[in-house]
């Protein structure tokens, strides 16, 4: 049987994602009638309990939204508070933040490429099964991940929920010796990342392209990680504060995550494909060569190939971390003291979490307590684009068997490394009392 024109795919709980969600695709008489990424992760209400906390607590509290990308939360929170105070940290603090963030990119990208995404291309259930086919590959992935964690531990004191980050900078500047000791492992990681690009660019990719509206940061002369202005493939160029105005979130029944649209109308995509499309020219020469060797043009619209882009970003993050390590001067003082305040302030910032743009906006009372918090994580921004991908994949896969189409639909979601824990940090509630 080759022409099954009716499908009803229901994957109750999607595996190899951070957090919990399911998908539903319905095909009737050869046309796709329904696609949905259902997010049922229970909300945790961060925006509801941040008000009343001291602004100094924001980085540590918001880190707990996501154990996979706590640094993204800490960096964005710090930058948003500093924006509220009109404060600019020293170049040394900025570089140390970028190094810490490179560590998280390396850890998170290695996790996604090797553990969450690659197994699909081998028809494996998981990375453990993949290891039985190609153990050196998995060991390479583990090595990369370990180096990312080592960078985070050295700079941040701990890999998951680092403790050394504070508004204005760091509690303590790591010693020169501690930072220089990262050079050896990072050089090995750089080699491993180049191997990674070679490995993944040989995978078999379905021929599907999305007509995405890309949104990513753009920074002066370098690939965006911890700072930049918000840009889009249709010419948007604005500050995080302005972006918070034009990115409008809506609440739908099937999801405990909000859906974002630009100007309240347009679905858009953040993450590696968007960063690459808007910033490829600012990659290092080595990363650009790896991209070219890996078969990438200046823009990649095939979501399945995001694994190649992610691997190119691994190359860049390793190289960038090495550059910062080589030039490291401990920031002195390790943190900028923020000015006192006599009236309420507000500020916003956006950074590039491994899986896409993360925006925080805070209003702070004159007594230093948070009045209002808004956090827009990458996955709620990407949710509509992921659903559009699901539709395309279903339309292109009508002749596949049910199992094959299910696998491909799951892969279409994993392509974007969605973090459901991030997406579902907020929402207000109808409270149901326990019976």
């Amino acid at each position, binding site marked *: 049987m080759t022409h099954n024109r009716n499908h009803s795919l229901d994957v109750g709980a999607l595996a190899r994602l951070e957090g919990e969600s399911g998908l539903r695709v319905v095909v009737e008489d050869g046309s796709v009638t329904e696609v949905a990424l259902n997010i049922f992760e229970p909300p945790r209400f961060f925006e509801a309990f941040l008000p009343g906390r001291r602004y100094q607590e924001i980085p540590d509290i918001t880190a707990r939204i996501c154990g996979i990308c706590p640094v993204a939360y800490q960096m964005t929170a710090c930058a948003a508070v500093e924006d509220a105070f009109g404060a600019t940290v020293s170049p040394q603090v900025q570089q140390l933040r970028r190094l810490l963030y490179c560590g998280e990119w390396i850890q998170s990208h290695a996790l996604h490429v090797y553990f969450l995404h690659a197994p699909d291309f081998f028809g494996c259930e998981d990375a453990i099964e993949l290891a039985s086919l190609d153990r050196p590959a998995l060991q390479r992935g583990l090595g990369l991940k370990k180096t990312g964690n080592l960078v985070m531990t050295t700079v941040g004191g701990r890999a998951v929920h680092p403790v050394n980050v504070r508004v204005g900078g760091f509690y303590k500047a790591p010693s020169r010796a501690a930072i220089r000791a990262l050079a050896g492992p990072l050089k090995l990681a750089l080699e491993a990342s180049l191997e990674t690009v070679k490995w993944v660019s040989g995978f078999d990719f379905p021929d599907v392209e999305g007509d995405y509206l890309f949104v990513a940061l753009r920074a002066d002369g370098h690939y965006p990680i911890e700072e930049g202005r918000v840009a889009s493939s249709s010419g948007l160029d604005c500050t995080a504060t302005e972006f918070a105005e034009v990115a409008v979130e809506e609440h739908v029944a099937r999801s405990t995550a909000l859906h974002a649209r630009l100007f309240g109308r347009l679905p858009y995509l953040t993450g590696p494909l968007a960063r690459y499309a808007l910033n490829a020219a600012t990659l290092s020469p080595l990363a650009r060569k790896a991209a070219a060797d890996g078969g990438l043009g200046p823009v990649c619209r095939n979501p399945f190939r995001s694994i190649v882009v992610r691997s190119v970003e691994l190359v860049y993050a390793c190289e960038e971390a090495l550059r910062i390590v080589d030039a490291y001067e401990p920031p002195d003082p390790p943190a900028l003291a923020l000015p006192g305040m006599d009236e309420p302030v507000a500020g916003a910032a956006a950074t590039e979490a491994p899986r896409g743009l993360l925006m925080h906006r805070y209003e702070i009372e004159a007594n230093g307590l948070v009045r209002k918090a808004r956090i827009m994580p990458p996955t709620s921004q990407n949710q509509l684009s992921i659903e559009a991908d699901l539709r395309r994949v279903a339309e292109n896969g009508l002749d596949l068997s049910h199992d094959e189409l299910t696998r491909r639909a799951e892969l279409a979601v994993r392509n974007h490394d969605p973090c459901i824990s991030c997406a579902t940090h907020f929402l207000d509630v109808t409270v149901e*009392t326990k019976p």
Partner: protein
Amino acid sequence: MTGPGRRPSLAVWKFASCDGCQLSLLDMEDELLALVEAVKISYFLEVTRAVAPGPYDVSLVEGSVTTQDDVERLQRVRAQSRFLVTIGACATSGGIQSLRNYAVVGDYVAAVYANPAYIRTLSSSTPISCHVPVDFEIRGCPINPHQLLEVLTAYLAGRAPRIPTHTVCQECKAAANVCVLVAGATACLGPVTRAGCGAICPLVGRGCFGCFGPAATANTASLAARLSADGAKPADVVRMFRSFTAGAPEFAKESAAHDT
């Protein structure tokens, strides 16, 4: 419980959480491949599509209980698990999301969202042990991967896990850190917080904020008096005890005593 030639089965379950504690399992990069040879991963959604039916020899449970569905799901997890271990502050004390337990419910309902009727949630975030018997608790926000490895190793060897129950303060002394509380009058929960992190906050010159929850013999009242003498206002004391392990009974009681 393990017969010769049979690998014990391991299941990992997620409730309301950030995923960081289950990530700690994957953060044991050097031991991971050996671990998956020693145990069979039978259910671990973040890592594998494959699902093997229960019962499971060991279940690791991350996250707190915040929905009625999860109350029921947890009962099914318990029924299928021989040895149930909770991992992390959410599972052992309700996590940062237990701050909702102190909120006025109406404040939550009234605010921003267009369609609150789509959301079903309980008014509280509670630890796993509020709902089912727990065989062992691993503390931390996040857990220390070495402690997780110790608990799994002990299980495989048929012995009791060796996990310290003394304080961060003792850990800090053993590491010969300068005391941030005594030398710098920095508010620090180290004297009442359970060891396990390696005193990493005092190590960078900041006070402990209680990720591992109360130690075995936590004299929270004495510490609170000291913090107040150093200038902390009642609201500051409340916030200190009411963060990542706010729901732990000792910390909940101390925070309530200053919440006027």
